[in-house]
């Protein structure tokens, strides 16, 4: 399992708890439909065709912001996602865990003109961080996202460092080696913060609704993103609790 993650920097993994993931999918659909005033039908169909409710990109943006706020307030994503994919995440991150406070929700209807720009999280985020990219619908081809694996992310980063003005050269690396990820509902793409990634215009007939959220070990080196601002403590081991309690008393007494 972690062999593949170590060599590629990413892996598509199945949920341990598909039942809870399906419950979460329904909750997201329910909130989305409540905002839109639409009746529920079959959950995958409802989410795949959410775009039918919008006439412009601005309407899409407004909806996404409202939906992000609503679901962040009503669903504890950080904790639930960590539990749903626990058998994969815990060996990577550990038992002393920081979870991103608010997940990022991405809604990409067909032909929506603003895909996610190519970037990598680290730096500035910590290189000891993982991203869980969780689709609420089957994601494939242009409906999904792309990434450069660990080897080609390193090559691309070195190319930019050594040839800062050669954007075409960088684009060629991307065109030759970026992989569009097939991530069916029931699974998640887990990838390292140092990988270049992004998305292109969705040319499929269905919408993509996905979220991404980040985890890191409480004690791994920090990036520039302030942990007080961006992360909550998700859990700590009994031993860590003892150690922190000891230090706390030392510092406050």
């Amino acid at each position, binding site marked *: 399992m972690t062999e593949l993650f170590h060599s590629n920097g990413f892996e598509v993994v199945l949920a341990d708890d598909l039942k809870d993931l399906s419950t979460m999918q329904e909750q997201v659909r329910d909130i989305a439909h409540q905002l839109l005033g639409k009746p529920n039908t079959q959950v995958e169909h409802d989410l795949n065709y959410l775009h039918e409710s919008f006439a412009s990109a601005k309407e899409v943006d407004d909806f996404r912001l409202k939906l992000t706020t609503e679901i962040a307030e009503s669903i504890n994503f950080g904790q639930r996602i960590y539990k749903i994919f626990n058998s994969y995440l815990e060996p990577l991150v550990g038992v002393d865990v920081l979870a991103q*406070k608010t997940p990022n929700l991405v809604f990409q209807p067909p032909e929506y003109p603003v895909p996610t720009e190519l970037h990598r999280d680290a730096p500035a985020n910590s290189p000891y961080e993982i991203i869980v990219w969780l689709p609420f619908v089957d994601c494939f081809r242009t409906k999904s996202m792309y990434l450069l694996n660990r080897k080609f992310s390193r090559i691309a980063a070195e190319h930019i460092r050594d040839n800062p003005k050669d954007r075409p050269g960088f684009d060629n690396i991307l065109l030759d080696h970026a992989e569009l990820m097939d991530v069916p509902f029931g699974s998640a793409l887990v990838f390292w913060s140092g990988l270049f990634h992004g998305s292109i215009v969705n040319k499929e007939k269905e919408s993509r609704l996905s979220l991404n959220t980040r985890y890191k070990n409480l*004690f*791994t080196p920090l990036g520039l993103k*302030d942990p*007080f601002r961006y992360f909550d403590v998700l859990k*700590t081991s009994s031993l860590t609790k003892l150690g922190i*309690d000891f230090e706390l008393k030392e510092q406050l007494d």
Partner: protein
Amino acid sequence: MSNFLAVLHTYSETQFSEPGVFKSPNIDLQRKAIDSRLISLRGKLCGEIFSEFTTEPGYSLTTLITKSYNLDISGIIFFTIDSLRKLDSQIDLHFLNILWQKYPSISFLVESIYFSNTIEFSLVAEKIVAINSCIKRDRSNDWLDFVKKI
């Protein structure tokens, strides 16, 4: 209506090291955020303090805050926990504890942190202990030497 003390943060030109964000929140924006918080707390402002980035919180805030000790105050609203950073970037937990002994509630708006009972304070203090230990370690030469070796 309850009385609250607000602590606004004076950022340096280069201090707001937020990836992708190039402007620090100015005082007007900070006041708007504080006002919004006051509405949700059904409180009113009884004093405003400016923390300086060039000094440690013990120096910049203690004197000013102690001036308010004789007032009936329900809590302090910090715009950001950055106001409690020492020059080595660690959060001044000792000073936060002094404030906690005096005031019934403390909020940090940017970080969405709020506590008004011992359990809530403990959770925040535990996180500060852990993060402070990382900050201290990440900045130490011993750690850098160790990382180079592996």
